[in-house]
């Protein structure tokens, strides 16, 4: 019974992320959200699966593609939508935009848009936890592009030799912008870039929430028991364009088969089918879940629209800490 409840909760989380991202996409053309957006549609299972084994005290870091991580870790929805609108109640007061989401209360320390930039920060948090003898872990989400930056390699090595409680989560969506992994790496197995530093790792289907969860359970337990880093490669697929609200497969940079399989492996469809087949959910229950989420989303957008602009005078505040 309990496990059914967990499954429903995770499914709700995924569908909530999807609907929020779709709402952003749909309303983007109103030109009220005037900042670049890198949507997480298609990559919800990775975020929700990993997060289901973290508690509030565990800290996460993310990238330009941070919406799913932010929401799955419990980031405040109003603060996110307001931020994307450049409004004062946004998590950065409008200073950062969609690529800089954070929420201290939820344990989301920072999201950063320079590729790879965030990886050593997560290692730094893990160093704090070790030095302070705390028992939480630090998690960094990044893409298949980011692992190519030198700083990943410096970070992995440092985390290993200092036994730091950090989880590296590499979401492989096969692309860095339009450039496929096959032009950038000898093969699709990125766990070799953990193995070579002596870091335990698992590669799994990142579109399957059950698989992500079992990998994440092993990973987080390993970090806590063995007091050392772990690496997850979650293979997934970005449904829409790299940056922006639209689909872009008319550009022809992804292969037909890849696209077809990518959409068939939609993490939400897979899980929906499974839950219905098992009798845990039915279409009506799902509709009810969706409707409740849609009400929440509309409220968040109304909140953002009615929210104030940051005052011009406030721009000078907080350049230096007091």
């Amino acid at each position, binding site marked *: 019974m309990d496990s059914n409840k967990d499954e429903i909760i995770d499914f709700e989380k995924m569908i909530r992320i999807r609907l929020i991202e779709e709402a952003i996409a749909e309303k983007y053309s109103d030109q009220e959200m*005037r*900042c*670049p957006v890198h949507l997480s549609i298609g990559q919800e299972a990775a975020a929700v699966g990993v997060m289901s084994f973290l508690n509030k005290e565990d800290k996460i870091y993310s990238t330009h593609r941070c919406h799913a991580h932010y929401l799955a870790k419990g980031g405040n929805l109003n603060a996110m939508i307001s931020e994307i609108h*450049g*409004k004062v109640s*946004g998590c*950065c*007061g*409008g*200073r*950062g*935009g*969609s*690529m*800089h989401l954070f929420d201290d209360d939820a344990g989301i320390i920072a999201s*950063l*848009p*320079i*590729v*790879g930039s965030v990886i050593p920060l997560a290692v730094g948090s893990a160093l704090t936890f070790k030095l302070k003898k705390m028992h939480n872990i630090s998690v960094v989400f990044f893409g298949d*592009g*980011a692992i*190519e*930056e*030198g700083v990943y390699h410096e970070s992995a090595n440092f985390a290993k030799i200092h036994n730091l409680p950090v989880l590296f989560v590499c979401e492989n969506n096969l692309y*860095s*912008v*339009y*450039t496929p992994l096959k*032009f*950038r*790496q000898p093969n699709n197995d990125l766990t070799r870039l953990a193995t070579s530093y002596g870091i335990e790792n698992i590669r799994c289907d990142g579109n399957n929430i059950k698989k992500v969860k079992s990998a994440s359970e092993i990973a987080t337990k390993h970090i806590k028991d063995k007091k050392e880093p772990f690496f997850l490669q979650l293979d997934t697929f970005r449904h829409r364009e790299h940056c922006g609200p639209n689909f872009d497969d008319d*550009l*022809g*940079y992804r292969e037909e088969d890849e696209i077809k399989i990518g959409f068939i492996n939609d993490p939400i469809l897979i899980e929906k089918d499974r839950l219905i087949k098992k009798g845990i959910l039915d279409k009506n229950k799902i509709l009810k879940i969706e409707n409740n989420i849609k009400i929440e989303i509309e409220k968040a957008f109304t909140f953002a629209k009615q929210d104030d*602009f*940051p005052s*011009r005078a*406030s*721009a*000078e505040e907080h*350049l230096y800490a007091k």
Partner: protein
Amino acid sequence: MQNDRKITMSQAIGEATLEAMKKDDTIFVIGEGVTDPKKIFGTTSELVEKFGIDRVIESPIAENGLMGFCIGSALSGMRPLLIHQRVEFALLSMEQIINNAAKMHYISNGKHNVPVVVRLIVGRGWGQGPAHSQSLEPLFAYIPGLRVAMPAFASDAKGMMLTALSENIPTIFIEHRWCHYVTGKVDSDTSNVLLDGPSVVRSGSDITIVATSYMLYEAILASDIAKEFNIFIEIVDLRIIKPLKLEKIVESVSKTKRLICVDTGFKEYGLGAEISASIFEALFKDLLKPVKRIGLPDRPTPSSRFLAADYYPTAENILNEIGKLMDFNSHKVEQMIEMLKIKKPDINADVPNPLFKGPF
């Protein structure tokens, strides 16, 4: 006929690259996205189709390494053109640029050359925010041995790129994204131009404005308004910010006796600081007024357009400084600004000004 051809600055840069690669097969282009469907804002269109993937090299995300690969390749006989889609991505290339590219020729007692061109693009607008819209040219200009070029006009950009690709000096080529859109007359047989420093793009007798890159368009707009009030501005396009050649600026200011420096980057420690210090050194007694500097305020670029509105200086800020230098009363300054508002539609500060479509 040919001479009336108008193209955008991004087309001009693309054309220069293509022509240079045709002439010199030691030139190759490398960078993240150089072959992708967007072709670096259109500037690498047709290159991979014409020259193949060995000369138009797609790359993993590895800016530090890339810079080193280019320097090493240059040291052994090639002429790499490295492209970063934002200035910020080059921050990962900095160690190689500063310690190796800039110094190799000097330290080898002139025996080694590093003919590398690095293109950097300054993002602006649409809430790109703190890490995608910085104009960091002074970081590069600070380093002896580098050449730093900042074109504003399509035809100059083409000539400058051709020259940069044909000479042996490591060159940081900084393009403002909003200049990319602007069209200008570009002869199809444009050839190399000298990368020898500033050039006067408008003559005038009352005030010298030294501007760079996109801010030239704001300066030109301001000078058009000032003219209606009988103030004649001489506009100097800084073009090559390193090595800094002061002669033309000194010559101009010794005539006008008043100077405004307008930067795309931060005001503090910016290009304007260097230029005004030099002008004080050269012309202290001749100046009628203190030098004015315009640049970004001392804080990161905010994403929100409500905060960005006050962040970027415009022709209005320039007119205010013109008013001060000419001892205009506040009424006259207001009149100038009113005229500007009639001329320039009230647009959000986060999209390019549609006025600046050229031809320039």
